């Protein structure tokens, strides 16, 4: 059931929807929260998600169940710089795997319900947003990866975003699988010929267990969204969050550094420093896959080349191996996970 607020019952025309869920670095969700505030967006509709979503809380009084709490599914709408926008900060992410059939699973049905509501609010185009782990160093600005269910839109995004924010076409056959609702919503949108694109902000691969959000990725999403839709923002607030986040990461890294014996410290931190060179993403694909799947890093010509020729650490005695880089990432990730568990 779609409940519309009275104030916004007249539907907006040609609205662009920005939908995001909590996930990698909370990047998309944080961007959605920023948009609601920056655009002064107001609740416009709500859908009942109890059929699809596992409850997020329960209230029990004197041993009797009083209430089951489900994550909210609220659509916010705003008119901003002469354009209509709908923002949907999704509070529940489905554990979708490649093996799950699309049309029969509740994630797809939930996506259809979101699209029904969006269309009833006058939505003509959709952007979903989230984070993506890449071989980037946390001191660097995040870039954005993008994809679209519409080849014309893809060309447009390539032209608009490639220069400043460019990473690569994530819908390349090898890397086409986008997990969760960020992937399933554009998929469901294709079935009704609605253009939907995905914006993914970069999060360093070794920060998988960072307990707090990664606002640099959110900023890259927002910049890409602004460029793609022809609007502008004042990023002061998110810049302040980035400063705080940088400080927190530096503190954690420094704690990690001091917990290591000097020899190990040098090797691990050199491995991470290497990422500052922002090596060609393509060359690191194999290493990246190995790390994500927790396999031993296989011999990889691209990375060897980076290690041997492009590394600032060209002294033979301090030469880094592929294993050093992988080990550095895995060790930091593991340290952050432990910090998180505390």
């Amino acid at each position, binding site marked *: 059931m779609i409940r519309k607020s009275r104030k916004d019952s007249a539907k907006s025309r040609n609205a662009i929807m920005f939908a995001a869920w909590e996930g990698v670095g909370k990047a998309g969700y944080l961007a959605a929260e920023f948009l609601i505030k920056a655009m002064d967006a107001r609740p416009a509709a709500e859908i009942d998600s*109890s*059929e*699809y*979503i*596992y*409850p*997020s*809380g*329960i*209230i*029990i009084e*004197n*041993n*009797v*169940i009083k209430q*089951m*709490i489900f994550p909210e599914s609220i659509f916010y709408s705003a008119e901003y710089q002469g354009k209509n926008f709908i923002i949907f900060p999704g509070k529940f992410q*489905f*554990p979708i795997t490649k*093996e*799950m*059939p699309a049309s*029969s*699973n*509740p994630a797809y049905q939930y996506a259809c319900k979101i699209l029904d509501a969006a269309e009833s609010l006058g939505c003509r185009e959709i952007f979903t947003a989230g984070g993506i782990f890449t071989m980037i160093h946390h001191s660097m600005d995040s870039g954005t990866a993008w994809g679209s269910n519409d080849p014309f839109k893809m060309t447009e995004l390539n032209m608009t975003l490639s220069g400043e924010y460019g990473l690569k076409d994530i819908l390349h056959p090898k890397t086409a699988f986008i997990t969760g609702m960020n992937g399933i919503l554009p998929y469901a949108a294709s079935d009704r010929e609605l253009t939907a694109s995905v914006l993914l902000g970069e999060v360093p691969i070794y920060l998988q267990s960072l307990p707090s959000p990664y606002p640099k990725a959110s900023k890259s999403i927002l910049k890409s969204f602004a460029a793609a839709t022809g609007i502008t923002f004042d990023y002061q607030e998110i810049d302040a969050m980035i400063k705080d986040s940088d400080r927190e990461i530096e503190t954690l890294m420094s704690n990690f550094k001091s917990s290591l014996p000097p020899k190990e410290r040098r090797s691990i931190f050199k491995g991470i420093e290497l990422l500052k060179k922002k090596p060609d993403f393509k060359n690191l694909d194999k290493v990246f896959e190995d790390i994500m799947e927790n396999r031993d890093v296989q011999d990889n010509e691209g990375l060897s080349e980076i290690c041997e020729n492009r590394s600032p650490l060209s002294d033979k005695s301090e030469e880094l191996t592929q294993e050093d880089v992988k080990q550095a990432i895995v060790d930091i990730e593991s340290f952050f996970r432990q910090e998180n568990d505390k």
Partner: protein
Amino acid sequence: MKRRYKIRKQVDSFPVAENSPAIILWQDDPNGTKVLMKMIDESEDLRPFIVFGSPEFRPTEGIDLNPGGLKRNDSVFLESGKRPGNIFFFGNKPEFCQSEYIDGMLNILQDCGTISCIYTISCIPAQTSHRHPRKSLFIFNSEQCRQRFNEKFKNIKNKEFSTMPGMPQEAPSINLYLAWKAAQRGIDCVNVIIESPFYSVISEDVAAETEAMRIIKKLTSGRYRKDEKADLIAQHQKEALDLIIKRSEDLTDYVEKIESGEMLSFEEMQLIISEIKRIIGEPHD
């Protein structure tokens, strides 16, 4: 009502429930219910009538329906041979589509006839001593259900909790979700939760399972026959834990703290578990 549950295997004769209870157990509960399921199987002469589930709910590795003993890796509905109409469900918790899965379970139960009440049985690790009797907590899916239960089972002791389990910010267990969904259909459901010392979760807590069995027997109107073998194992477990705890002054202090009603910190709890694990080694299936 949509009938979207997947029945993987079904026998011809369906049970006829006439105001009968249904008992729900999960095979993959963290504390394990293997002993309990074996006890129920032996005393109730169980007859499986539906194997339930689908890869959409949880990846399955196959089905092994062996009427001579419980050896299953899928969810299964069974009828008591001793008390026809009484239904048991030994499930594997769904990883996806939980709402649909529970709807499917409730559809099957309603297809069996009139269910007086659904009882879910589980154990939770708690700050309780292995030397104390296991206590039980009951969560009801409505005030009326609570009243009916209290009138029917005056002798069952109930421990009151004001906040646990279930907080506004914490996802409920599948049993609580089931109870809530049952209430939407007007079916009574009681979550029976038996406390087990948190440091005995590293092995099957037979004392908790014997207590669960005793409660199940009362709920299903069966007479509880003392299981001497299980009692003996529980006694051995208690003595083994006594021996381990006596070997360390810290452990002795911590257990005495628990017995005096003091709450241990998370670090202290971890310390007890790791010390016991160190002494007896990791459990084996």
